[in-house]
């Protein structure tokens, strides 16, 4: 398969199939994230990159067997290791004896949040989510450092990829965009009782800005969400997350201890989870939008 456009399209199809598989496994939160990031934003970014390069992969100079052997060997080792794991969902697997009952039984009593995934992500495994948010932040910074130089030069109207003349998409998207924004807020606020949370909401918000930029041009999108604002928002999310941890310290508990944030311990958990999810939401939305600006701001 040498046509890169077809490869990008197939990548989007693959992401979508993975989202369906995750849905079949009852992991709706992850499925939502995979569908929006993998099949949505990633495909847009890759297509934007494709615009700058040739559309056919250059033929390899010579066929080297080394990478193929390494890939096959690693795959074989992984399969061998996976063979030793207990079958999926079996009741005597270690996680079902120990960790899962604790989460499923105690999550309402300890945190008051019905969505176990959000509770695990934001409270039980809060440190890991802090690391994830920092990773997103670092990735965004990395992309901006690499591509920022070009951004400042292009102040003229960038109509690259603008479909302003196309009436039907423009009218319908203008109708749909407010609902997409509302849906992003809905997914964020209802992350506690249904599938959703900070990541998904951030990606949906960024996708709505990207959609606006696709129809009305990059300059219009930059007027709506200027780069200055994004530069403030990207670290702000990580800062909020860390600040919640420090607030735990100030009120007398451990770092990222939510129990001390309120007189009622369970309310403290809910408050901590809410602010932590806000931090994640802000960082993810701002980073995705900034990456999109950086990628599509490089005119040919």
């Amino acid at each position, binding site marked *: 398969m040498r046509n890169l456009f077809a490869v990008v399209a197939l990548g989007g199809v693959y992401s979508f199939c993975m989202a369906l598989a995750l849905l079949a496994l009852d992991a709706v939160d992850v499925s939502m994230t995979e569908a929006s990031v993998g099949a949505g934003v990633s495909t847009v970014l890759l297509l934007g990159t494709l615009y700058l390069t040739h559309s056919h992969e250059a033929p390899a100079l010579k066929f080297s067997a080394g990478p193929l052997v390494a890939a096959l060997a690693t795959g074989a080792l992984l399969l061998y290791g996976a063979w030793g794991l207990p079958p999926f969902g079996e009741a005597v697997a270690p996680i079902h004896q120990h960790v899962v009952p604790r989460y499923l039984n105690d999550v309402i009593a300890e945190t008051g949040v019905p969505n176990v995934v959000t509770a695990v992500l934001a409270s039980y495994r809060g440190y890991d989510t802090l690391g994830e948010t920092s990773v997103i932040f670092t990735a965004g910074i990395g992309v901006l450092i690499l591509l920022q130089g070009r951004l400042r030069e292009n102040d003229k109207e960038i109509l690259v990829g603008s*479909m302003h003349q196309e009436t039907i998409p423009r009218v319908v998207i203008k109708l*749909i965009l407010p609902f997409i924004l509302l849906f992003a807020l809905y997914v964020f606020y209802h992350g506690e009782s249904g599938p959703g949370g900070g990541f998904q909401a951030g990606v949906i918000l960024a996708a709505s800005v990207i959609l606006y930029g696709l129809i009305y041009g990059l300059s219009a999108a930059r007027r709506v969400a200027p780069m200055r604002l994004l530069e403030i928002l990207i670290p702000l999310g990580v800062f909020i997350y860390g600040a919640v941890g420090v607030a735990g310290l100030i009120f007398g508990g451990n770092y990222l201890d939510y129990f001390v944030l309120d007189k009622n311990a369970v309310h403290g958990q809910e408050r901590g989870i809410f602010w932590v999810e806000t931090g994640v939401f802000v960082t993810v939305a701002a980073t995705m939008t900034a990456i999109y600006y950086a990628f599509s701001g490089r005119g040919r």
Partner: protein
Amino acid sequence: MAWIMDGVSWALIAAGGFFCVVGAFGIIRMPDLYTRMHASGVIDPFGVSLILIGLMFQAGFTLVTAKLAVLVIVLLFTSPVACHALGRAALHRGLKPKLAEKDGEPSNK
């Protein structure tokens, strides 16, 4: 009364499935990009919407029905736009549709 609702929802889901199959068949068998998109444009508005409306009958008058109705409306709006954008992009790129008669001749002789 319940079996009427069940029967109607069964009929709608079956019709939706039929349209999905027709659309999939059309994508494979049609000769040209534009005709293939015409076939695939049938799947989302007709197929999926009919299935969702059939599911609405299954759910009764609950919140799920309202959410499904919103889904149907959103799908009816966005999927034809996507097909149209694809066709427009292809035309813009220069892909000419495959016509039955030669270029330049009137279609009715």
